[in-house]
Every structure is written in C-alpha cells, then in structure tokens.
C-alpha cells in the first residue's frame, strides 16, 4: 500500500489512540514546514551525515510549536512559550553531539522569546532554528505579533497596527547567527536545501519561513501560496524592490559555543580546586 514517504518519521497512532492528522487547520503552512524538514533530515540520514537517534526537536508554544506535541518519531520536547532556545541550550550542554532543531513561530521566537533569541545567536550555540512566520498569533485567535505589518487589522489591532514589524533575519544576523536564510512555504525545494545546509553546519542557524495562516487571514491556502510567491524576490534582485527578499542572508562560520568550552574543560580537567 502506498504511504507518504515521511510517515515513517511520524507516530500515527499508539496505545491511547490515533495521533494524525496534524491538528493544524486545512492548508496551514506549518504542516508543509514539517514535511520540508523531514525531507531534509531524511536526506542527511540517508547520506550518513547523522543517525536518526541524534536528532532532537524542541519547540515552544503556538501552532508551529505543536509539531513536537506527540507526532514525531524522534526525541522531542514541546516546551514553554518562548523558551525553546533556552531549553535547547541545556540539551546541547548535556550532549553536544545531538542535532538540535528548534521549531518556533514569530510570536514565540521574537516576542516572549526575544531575549533568548538574541542570546542564542550571540552565543552561536549549535542549533537550527526554523521559524514559521505567519505574522500573527495563530493559536490564540489571530492577535498582532512583532512581525505583523504596519496597518494590518488583527484581533488586537482592530483599528490597524500602528507598529512596524521586525525583520527577523536581520535580528538574527546582527545578534551573531552564523547562517541566516529566509524562504516561504511556496519555495519547497529551496527551503529543504536551506534546512539541510543549516543542520549540517556547526553553529547557530536561523531559517525564517513565511507561512500561511488561511483561517486568520481569511484567504484560501492556494491564494496565500500564490501571494507568498508574488510578494517575494530573490536577494540578488531585491535592490530597489518593495518585495520581501528571500535567500541566504549570511553564511559566516565562527567558533561554536561548545567547541570553545571544550578548551576550558581540557585546561581544567582533574583539578580539585
């Protein structure tokens, strides 16, 4: 019987009932991002770049973060709103050999998680952050987020948003991330390639994926996918364009946190005081 090739990485059911389909709304971009991520991970495992049991998925709270709730046939943790990167830091310090992927959303990462966001990238901890940016708080009913565009009407900006949006890629890059890229759910192959590259690199990687929320935007998934394609432009053509640039913003390897700490351990090991 034909089965989707990535279902081998998901828990479809268990002793206490079925787990799929994903809880996401029809056409939500979050499921697509999971699909792209699993394709990237599958490719790495098949090429011998990592073992399946070395992968750990950590998420915060929100629609994007539901991916780890009980679906993954991997080690995972569905954690606290905004704190996925702090928890991921702990995972890394206990076992630097694990491949840590953080699933987060724009609110989770840049509002409540903002402090941990900038410090994780400043420290350049070995983690791949996949941020599904739909420009609002989906799970709780479509409230404004730090990534909501100016003048947008949301459930908490009923008169139009008077604030401007973060550029998350610039924030990650200026904080010190060693690999930063932005794609959208309408760019499946580019996204898979970027995720694969990020996981295989040492250091803190940030991948922003503009993602559709059809329910709160009140548009069909297909219309939103078409819009994501239309509103973006490759970085090399972005000069003078009002469209959102997509592509790789930086790829600047620098020493990773646990690698630097290793030198301290080597110097100190065995001392009593």
């Amino acid at each position, binding site marked *: *019987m*034909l*089965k*989707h*090739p*990535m*279902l*081998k990485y*998901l828990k479809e059911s268990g002793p206490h009932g079925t787990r*799929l*389909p*994903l809880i*996401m*709304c*029809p*056409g*939500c*971009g*979050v*499921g*697509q991002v*999971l*699909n*792209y991520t699993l*394709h990237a991970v599958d490719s790495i495992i098949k090429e011998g770049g990592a073992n399946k049991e070395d992968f750990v998925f950590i998420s915060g709270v929100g629609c994007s973060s539901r991916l780890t709730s009980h679906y993954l046939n991997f080690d995972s943790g569905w954690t606290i709103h905004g704190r996925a990167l702090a928890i991921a830091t702990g995972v890394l310090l206990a076992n630097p050999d694990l491949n840590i992927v953080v699933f987060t959303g724009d609110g989770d990462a840049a509002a409540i998680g903002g402090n941990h966001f900038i410090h994780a990238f400043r420290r350049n901890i070995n983690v791949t952050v996949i941020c599904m940016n739909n420009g609002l708080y989906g799970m709780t009913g479509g409230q404004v987020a730090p990534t909501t565009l100016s003048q947008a009407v949301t459930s908490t900006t009923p008169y139009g948003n008077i604030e401007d949006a973060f550029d998350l890629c610039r924030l990650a890059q200026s904080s010190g991330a060693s690999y930063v890229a932005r794609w959208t*759910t309408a760019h*499946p*192959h580019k996204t*898979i390639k970027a995720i694969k590259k990020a996981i295989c690199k040492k250091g803190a990687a940030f991948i922003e994926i503009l993602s559709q929320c*059809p329910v709160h935007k009140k548009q*069909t*998934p*297909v219309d939103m*996918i*078409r819009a994501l394609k239309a509103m973006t432009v490759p970085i090399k053509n972005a000069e003078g364009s009002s469209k959102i640039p997509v592509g790789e913003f930086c790829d600047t390897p620098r020493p990773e946190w646990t690698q630097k700490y290793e030198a301290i351990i080597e110097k100190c090991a065995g001392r009593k005081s």
Partner: protein
Amino acid sequence: MRKIFISTDYCKGCLICVESCPKKVLKISSSISAKGYTLPQVSDTEKCNGCGICEIVCPDFAIAVEKEDKAV
C-alpha cells in the same frame, strides 16, 4: 501509469497539491469526504511523471505517488 494514493483520513482538502502539480494531474473533486472536506482527485494519471512535488508540499502527508526505483 503511476498509482496515486490520497488518504481520506489525513487529507483536509487544502488543494495545495492541485495548485503545485506541474503536470496538472490533480483536480478538485466534486464530492465531499466524510470529514466534510472537498478532496483532490486524480484527473489524468498518464501525465504523472512521479516528480513527487505533491508529496513534498502536502501539509498532512496525505498523498503518495508511486516512484520507480525509489524506496519509500
């Protein structure tokens, strides 16, 4: 002719696969599933070249395409 399987358990009728298929193999069906979704259906399997884009873009892992020489 390639087999294409669409799961009525997992598909939520978002129709992104219909939009994404470069060969226009899929179309919107005229019937509604037991869960109330308008599912996609295969309109012309002859045109399918097994590229697998529908599998990649599906948010619910609800479609599978037979691919020659590719292990699932």
